[in-house]
């Protein structure tokens, strides 16, 4: 019985051409698009130091120390010119510097830029990351200087300044699996599909059936996500940082989170299949936006304004796991991320199951 239901569910997904097309088109098209958009950066691996003007209101502020410390491949990443406000602005107008950093006080650090570009983004990331550090310090979450420089490096590393976008993309791919879960499990819903009646009228437990269908979806998701990862790593040659097996493991956990999210939403009662689909698209894409799919800074802004969102937004949770893997390696923090994803997935699965039982 298990085999029959499992293979049938697999066939149902694989033979649904539209679904397979979208499952594959999304990662490959978007990945390639990102790659083309940022392609020049990957080719031109040696980026010159970024020229920046610093306007100090007080002497020896921590931000200045930090700016001086940021190094890349043992070379200083920033070329700092200390200047007053007027001179700094002239430098910026003449395009002699990329941006001006105003070091007003310990907490008050501001950045002015005139254009948008990769160098400007790096500066933005540095300043935003500094703010995160300061905020965290206030909440007694200490990040060592070494770690901080790593965080800055990650966003400012001239090899992969847009790695964040790819983390997000993978999170998206994992979470979009939830919609295929919906499509698959929806056919068992008696209020939506006649086949649901037929399955309900059969002597097989609804819960068992749902779980087998879930496993089939998870299988397909694992394959699709692995293919996408292989494509990113070996065709687009994107360096994800961290150990490759762990990058795959993290992505695998991501698919688990996506599929169980789909399982959960599918089994909500009294909501039409169409609305459920809309809910999932919103969670996936809206969550992706909040996690920085379109603007890398978004996530940091959320972290400052409403950190709870980053904790419950599946896309953030996943990008976070990739970040920590990259920055801290196989560390306690990475393990915390992993456990958090597992807990969230099981919560979705268990509440979903309770709702199946109640049907």
């Amino acid at each position, binding site marked *: 019985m298990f085999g029959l239901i499992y293979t049938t569910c697999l066939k*149902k997904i694989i*033979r649904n051409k539209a679904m397979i097309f979208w499952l594959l088109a999304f990662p490959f098209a978007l990945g390639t698009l990102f790659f083309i958009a940022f392609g020049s950066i990957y080719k031109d691996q040696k980026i010159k130091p970024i020229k920046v003007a610093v306007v100090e209101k007080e002497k020896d502020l921590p931000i200045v120390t930090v700016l001086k410390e940021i190094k890349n491949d043992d070379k200083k990443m920033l070329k700092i010119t200390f200047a007053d406000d007027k001179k700094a602005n002239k430098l910026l107008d003449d395009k002699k510097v990329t941006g001006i950093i105003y070091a007003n006080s310990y907490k008050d650090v501001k950045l002015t830029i005139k254009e948008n570009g990769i160098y400007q983004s790096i500066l933005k990331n540095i300043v935003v990351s500094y703010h995160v550090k300061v905020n965290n310090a206030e909440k007694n979450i200490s990040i060592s200087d070494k770690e901080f420089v790593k965080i800055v490096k990650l966003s400012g590393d001239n090899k992969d300044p847009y790695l964040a976008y790819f983390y997000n993309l993978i999170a998206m791919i994992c979470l979009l699996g939830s919609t295929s879960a919906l499509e698959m499990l929806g056919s068992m819903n008696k209020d939506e599909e*006649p086949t649901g*009646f037929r399955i*309900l*009228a*059969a002597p097989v437990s609804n819960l068992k059936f749902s779980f087998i269908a879930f496993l089939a979806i998870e299988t397909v998701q694992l394959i699709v996500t692995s293919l996408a990862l292989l494509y990113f790593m070996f065709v687009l040659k994107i360096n994800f940082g961290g150990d490759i097996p762990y990058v795959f493991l993290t992505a695998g956990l991501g698919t688990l989170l996506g599929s169980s999210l789909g399982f959960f939403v599918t089994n909500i009662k009294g909501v039409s299949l169409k609305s459920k689909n809309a809910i999932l698209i919103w969670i996936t894409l809206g969550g992706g936006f909040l996690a920085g799919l379109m603007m890398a800074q978004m996530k940091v802004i959320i972290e400052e304004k409403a950190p709870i969102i980053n904790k419950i937004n599946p896309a953030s949770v996943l990008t976070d796991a990739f970040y920590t893997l990259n920055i801290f390696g196989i560390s306690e923090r990475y393990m915390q991320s992993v456990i958090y994803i597992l807990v969230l997935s099981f919560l979705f699965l268990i509440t979903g199951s309770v709702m199946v039982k109640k049907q």
Partner: protein
Amino acid sequence: MDTVVKVTNLVKRYKELIAVDNFSFEVKQGEIFGLLGPNGSGKSTTINCILSLLKYDKGEIEIFGEKMQGEKPELLKRIGLVGQNVAVFDELTVYENINFFCGLYIKDKDKRKALVDEVIDFVELNDFKKFYPKKLSGGLLRRLNIACGIAHKPELIIFDEPTVAVDPQSRNKILEGIKKLNKEGATIIYTSHYMEEVEEICTNILILDKGKEVARGTTQELKNMIKNTENVIVDSRNITEEAIKDIKNLSHIYKVTYENNVLTIKCNGGKHNISHVLNYLDDNSIKYDRIYSELPTLNDVFLEITGKELRD
């Protein structure tokens, strides 16, 4: 005879609407039990309640002598459902669909294969085993739908309007098939709003309207309930008010209607009603195209009891 299904005082509400309004019935082993009623009369709702696919507000349901409540896999194993809507997976072929749905009941592979082959023969889909449902005609699709519901050889089969939107040829095949299944031992519940079908195959009939029981019995019993015994129908363009009055005064005639050049004369009792009408027409030199006599149908039963046509 054993009772296969026993429904007692079933009530099902959808908010204000009472879809099933407190009726009871029993289906005996070996019967073809007909649930006849117009659209929206509560046939599908009744069936879904019987199978516990719907929660109902009141009543008791027993199948094979056991209470049907909650998950009852042992009971469901012995039942087959052919629902009103075609319920197959578009991504699976004809063979795979039947094999899958049969597999929900029959675990043993060899046994299942034999059953699937047999049912494919039965519904004559041998030439279409590898077809996907989208490529099947309406009639073939209905047959696939039936095959998926009966492949596991259930003792009780429930058909919910299996012939809706089916051409006459396929319809006859389906009805023949149901009779055959019944001969082979299956008890059958058959719902329809086509009285001809119900009249043709059902041994016992429950007529519903707006969730309420209208009448019940065998075809003959139902027909005996009404005073209508014969209908004489005349196709003619030349019937006057005068003629209608005269005909109404002939003996054993209780109702005469004239609509769209068709004169319908309802008789209660009497033996030579058609010749009385003929004589009258001839005596008065009224020309007509056609004249014939019909026995009342279940439609007349429905009409007489509820005052409206079974089919609109």
